[in-house]
């Protein structure tokens, strides 16, 4: 007697999840974006299982060839398979994007919490953040990579540092508005420790805007990586990324524009999807917007 109802209750969360887009009245756009992004992520994650060639294997006889059975998208100037390089490049580009987003959100969150809560630290921290924001991020990033060498981590660091001030500002503004709330006062009155107040009472307020910000940082990190590679300050070409495939293709642009077109298309689709999902998340999480629609 109880078994069927239990089964239904087990299914409940799944059903709820499936009907989520409908209940939230999402359009077709975000759905397509989610599917495209999912395909790109899965294709990149499982790339080693299905790529036809080693992305680094040089084939001197097949340089700059057009698409064929052996090379689905043709080859680059070293005879390397463009298809294998593009899907493997997606792995590294996505890794850089997600890595930069996590590191900058994490560091920005801690600095922002401290800055928003402690008035004495605030002035100093915010001046430093203002200054960091004044430095053009691309210049700062290429300078950092040029000085620290073109490794994957130095590229992630170079992308992260200019993003931190934006996260700090966001977290700080949330903390400033919520620190005056009665529950924070109550927590202080009850003698909660400072880290506990920051982490348990104030931090949860920042999660929604940070999720949105994180998606934007992820998208912009993938873009910045491409620009860094393009300017010659990116990850070395032994690790293919969408950026450095395009940077190499640039020399042969007039002969074979596809060397820029395919990675460029993948990168743009990926960033487009991430941005669209970020916009959707922002609209859903912004209470002001909801009120206006009602």
């Amino acid at each position, binding site marked *: 007697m109880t078994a069927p109802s239990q089964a239904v209750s087990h299914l409940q969360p799944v059903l709820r999840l499936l009907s989520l887009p409908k209940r939230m009245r999402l359009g077709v756009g975000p759905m397509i974006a989610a599917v495209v992004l999912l395909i790109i992520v899965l294709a990149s994650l499982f790339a080693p299982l299905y790529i036809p060639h080693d992305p680094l294997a040089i084939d001197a006889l097949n340089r700059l060839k057009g698409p064929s059975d052996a090379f689905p998208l043709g080859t680059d100037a070293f005879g390397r398979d463009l298809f294998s390089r593009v899907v493997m490049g997606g792995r590294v580009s996505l890794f850089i994007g997600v890595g930069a987003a996590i590191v900058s959100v994490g560091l920005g969150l801690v600095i922002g919490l401290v800055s928003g809560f402690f008035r004495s630290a605030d002035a100093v921290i915010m001046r430093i953040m203002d200054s960091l924001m004044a430095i053009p991020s691309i210049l700062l990033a290429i300078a950092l990579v040029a000085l620290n060498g073109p490794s994957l981590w130095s590229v992630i660091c170079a992308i992260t540092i200019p993003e931190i001030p934006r996260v700090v500002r966001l977290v700080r503004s949330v903390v400033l508005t919520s620190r005056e709330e009665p529950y924070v006062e109550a927590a202080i009155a009850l003698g909660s420790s400072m880290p506990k107040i920051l982490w348990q009472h104030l931090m949860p307020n920042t999660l929604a805007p940070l999720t949105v910000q994180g998606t934007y940082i992820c998208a912009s990190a993938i873009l910045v990586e491409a620009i860094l590679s393009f300017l010659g300050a990116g990850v070395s070409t032994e690790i293919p990324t969408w950026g450095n495939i395009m940077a190499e293709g640039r020399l042969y642009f007039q002969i074979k524009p596809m060397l*820029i077109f395919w990675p460029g298309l993948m990168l743009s689709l990926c960033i487009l999807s991430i941005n669209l999902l970020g916009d959707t998340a922002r609209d859903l999480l912004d209470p002001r917007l909801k009120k206006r629609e009602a």
Partner: protein
Amino acid sequence: MIGYIFRRVLAVIPVITIVAVFVFLLLRLTPGDPAAIIAGDAATPAQLEKIRTSLGLNDPLPVQFATWVGHLFQGDLGISLISNTSVSSMIADRIWPTINIAIMTIILSVVLAVPMGVLAAWRHRTWADYAVMSFSVLGFSVPVFVIGYIFIQVFSIELRWLPVQGYTAPSQDFGKFLSKAILPCLTLATIYVALIARMTRASMLEVLGEDFVRTARAKGVSETVVLFRHALQNAAVPILTIIGTGFALLISGVVVTESVFNIPGIGRLTVDAILARDYPVIQAMILLTSALYVFINLLIDVSYSLIDPRIRY
């Protein structure tokens, strides 16, 4: 008002100072010997010593900083390690192409983006709105250099309407300048237009819901006047702010665009300097662009009260 401007100008000083300290420390705090980083692997001890003395790397850090700042105040940005000429003259030689392209881009972007944003807000949730928003999301998603190459491929290679690359000074031949500057400006404008149009739309949407807009419409003011005088003027502050903060995007864009289109401006100068590790040039360029960014945002901050009489200080 004057008190506000004074305070706002004073607030710039710590920001610029910290930028200067940061730029100064960027090289000194890098792990390893800065001279070796600049000179590369194949340097002889004599070369290293030359770099150390020319940068003053043998002095203690505070002394180095004081000397550097002292020289800055005299307008001396240092001597390039590669070309051995003064950095200020190098910048002076290369700055005009960048300024010309940047000004053209800003004008083009504002002229395109503001009407686009107004249209999107006015026709909210129609195809016009969706078209503007799609363009805006697309503009953020395609790397600047890919846009540049697409333009070159379409307009220069396929259609042969415009030259592929290069730069001619407007004083030399204005027609040639225009034909060569159009594509770089369009390329550079894409992301800026996307940014400004999106902000204009959001800000206008907010304002169009206000009572005074309804009143203006009710008393029979023509729609154009409602949109561009009543609404846009009240929506102007966030739009101006984004034009100011978007200036950072423009600087990044200039660096890339000048490389794509082979324009001998300061963007290229900076990239070449960074790749050659010509440190005095890097320092000067980062400092200069940051100061410019701060200055422009200062101007915009101060101009708020001129545009929006509700803002008083």
